[in-house]
């Protein structure tokens, strides 16, 4: 009985620590996306996304300020649904992916703002430049999935200036900032 009791205790402890556990962003099931938009001539939004990325985050609803997230992005996977434009965006006029094929984001400070709002401060490395950015995020939900896993998901928005990341602003005065629209769903490890 003693052995069974301690096994039970270990399992209980394990499930507690799992509550604060690491989540793997579900890029395989594509329940996550890194979308961007930039104004076209000031007349409309041009949208696109990065198709290939991976990442992990730590999150515990009991202690949201201890959360963290890191994401690695394959910049060559940029997709604006137009091959000629994607080729141009990958070239030296913009992302220069031959030289800078990877981008990444590592959170440095996550603050729970209440009402499901979360402020994520972190370092974004893009085009060889590392800068601190702030993502206004919100928790969408968490819970068991129907297939035996446990998931938590968030959405976030931020904007970056092309110039801040060493890219020339060639697209006109209305198109100097890129808005990032982020969606992550993680599967608890």
């Amino acid at each position, binding site marked *: 009985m003693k052995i069974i009791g301690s096994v039970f205790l270990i399992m209980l402890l394990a499930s507690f620590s799992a509550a604060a556990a690491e989540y793997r962003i579900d890029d395989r099931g594509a329940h996550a996306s890194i979308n961007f938009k930039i104004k076209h001539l000031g007349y409309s939004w041009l949208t696109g996304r990065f198709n290939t990325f991976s990442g992990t985050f730590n999150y515990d609803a009991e202690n949201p300020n201890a959360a963290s997230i890191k994401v690695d992005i394959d910049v060559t996977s940029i997709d604006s*649904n137009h*091959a*000629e434009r*994607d*080729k141009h965006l990958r070239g030296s006029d913009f992302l220069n992916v031959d030289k800078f094929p990877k981008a990444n984001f590592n959170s440095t400070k996550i603050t729970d703002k209440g009402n499901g709002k979360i402020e994520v401060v972190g370092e974004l490395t893009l085009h060889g430049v590392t800068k601190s950015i702030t993502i206004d995020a919100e928790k969408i939900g968490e819970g068991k999935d129907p297939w035996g896993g446990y998931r938590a998901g968030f959405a976030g928005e931020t904007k970056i200036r092309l110039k801040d990341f060493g890219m020339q602003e*060639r697209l*006109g005065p209305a198109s100097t900032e890129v808005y990032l629209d982020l969606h992550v769903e993680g599967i608890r490890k």
Partner: protein
Amino acid sequence: MLKNSPKKYGLVAKFLHWLTAITVIALFAVGLWMVDLDYYDAWYTKAPYYHKSVGILLGLLMVLRMLWRISNTTPVPPKNHQLWEIQSARLAHGLFYLLIFLMIISGYLISTADNRSIDVMGWFEIPSLGSLIDNQEDTAGLIHEWLAYVLIGLASIHGIAALKHHFYDKDETLKRMI
């Protein structure tokens, strides 16, 4: 006059030759120029449009040219040409056909990598075969760029060789094509 004779190229072959030459050089110049246009330049969208249209039309011209070539006698090389000259000229002419077709195919693969067709002067459209390889537009783009330099390099050698025959050897080589 229209057809080739064993001694001379006919008018059709001359016309096809010089039209190809002008078109290839123009496509190269426009291609180099258009990729560095400012986003707000009036030619930013027009230049690639005409570059693609003319490229496809060049492909049709090249098909006609090949048909004309095989259905016609090819003039024999002038008597004073050495064997190595004859062989290297043959190789260069074969390479021209190969390079021009590869240029058109690689260009086609850039523009059609996302299933979009190529509109030719608003007259007709060349449909896409879809995306055949990953990041097709980038790979095809690199091939298109490098082959363009090879093609223009070969054309320069071709032109210099013709001038050498005309002014240095003082033979019939260039005159047969004019």
